[in-house]
């Protein structure tokens, strides 16, 4: 069964939200969704760029109170 997991990368400068997502995707099963929380606006661009390049799927991006929420589905 697919799961949804949150990666709380708020206030992180190293390794950073995308690195956390890459590590998280490796542990996930196909179909799982990962929601990355980030206070770094750059992640809102970096994450979709990587996800598209590798061929996973960005389910949605939103911002609330300075925190970006990027939801990604592992597709392969």
């Amino acid at each position, binding site marked *: 069964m697919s799961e949804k997991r949150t*990666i*709380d*990368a708020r*206030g*992180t*400068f*190293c*390794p*950073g*939200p*995308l*690195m*956390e997502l*890459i*590590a998280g995707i*490796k*542990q996930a099963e196909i179909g799982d969704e990962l929601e990355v929380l980030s206070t770094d606006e*750059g992640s809102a661009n*970096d994450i979709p*760029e*990587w996800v598209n*390049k*590798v061929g996973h799927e960005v389910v949605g991006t939103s911002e609330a109170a300075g925190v970006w929420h990027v939801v990604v589905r592992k597709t392969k």
Partner: protein
Amino acid sequence: MKILIVGGGMGGTILANNLARRLKHELKMGKAHITMLSASEQHMYQPGLLYVCVGRMAPDELYREQATLLEPEIEFHVDPVEEFHLPKNHVKTKSGKVYDYDIIVIATGSRAMPESIPGLAENSVNCYTETAALDMWRQLKGFNGGTVTIAVGVPHKCPMIPLEVTFVLHDYFKDRGILDKVKFQYTYPIGRLHSLAPVGEWAQGEFERMGIHTETLFNMKEVDGANHVIHSEEGTQKPFDLLVAVPPHKGMEVIEKNGLGQNGWIPTDRHSLKMEGHDNAYVLGDTTNLPISKAGSTAHFEAEALAENLAAVIKLGEPVRDYDGKVFCFIEAGKDRATYAMFNYNQPPAPKAPNKAVHWFKMAYNQLYWASARGLL
């Protein structure tokens, strides 16, 4: 009050000593008791492996007897934990003994897993264990030119290693007079040269000056040893004559086996360092799941904050402060220049241009580390 520290590496050792000093009176009166369980009677200064892999340090310079680093009041056993029974407040060790506690701190570290990428273990070198660093040194000695490709897995311990190993190898080949025969290709998992943006920008200039080719958004998928090519998850590939890996890491198997955390990473509160869902279990260093550097300095600053808090809990019944995410990383920028990055959850780093003074400070720190482990620095 019985405090049990599992792991005698950077985090566990600094915590134990710092706590022993703060609780001197309570330990003397028998009101507190500190026990450390570790998997080795030796303590290794892991950052020294970066020098071992280019023949600038011998491995025996990196070890001290763990018992000699600890305050005399600390009870120390080389007896690795095999079972954690957190609801019952005890652990079971390899020797079959059961140790109970009021407070447990888990600091078992992490390990490089080159075997987790197909073909990587057989076809690459790395500097993450003594054996690997010595093997790297031997392979470097026999390398007389060709393409050196650096490939980086996530997560990994010591965020500076990908850059440092590149700089250090560059100077190693320069000293051997064969730099003109070596082509460097540096790859990195995300869209810049380092996860810390200012460090990545600084590295960009350095690499351009040094003629190092770069490819970002490159995550290892598999290595084709027969054809000397590494393939990325992103669908690109890089040839190599020598493949230098920063392997992906996992926490210790015992953590995963006991269901404390997927891949050996224990869910940890970023401020209190409490294991999530437990009031008397804390986590330190590499084995946390925190989104911060897996570095000795992280373990060090966490240990200081936790020692202060545990002492306060025992003396006052309450913790006194939060861990603020502080990390300090030296960055060796070659054989005789270095800089550093310092940051926390709120403040990004601002690295300066490398210079010789910081390099010499890092060399001095390689020795001062033993004072730091004793909790003196």
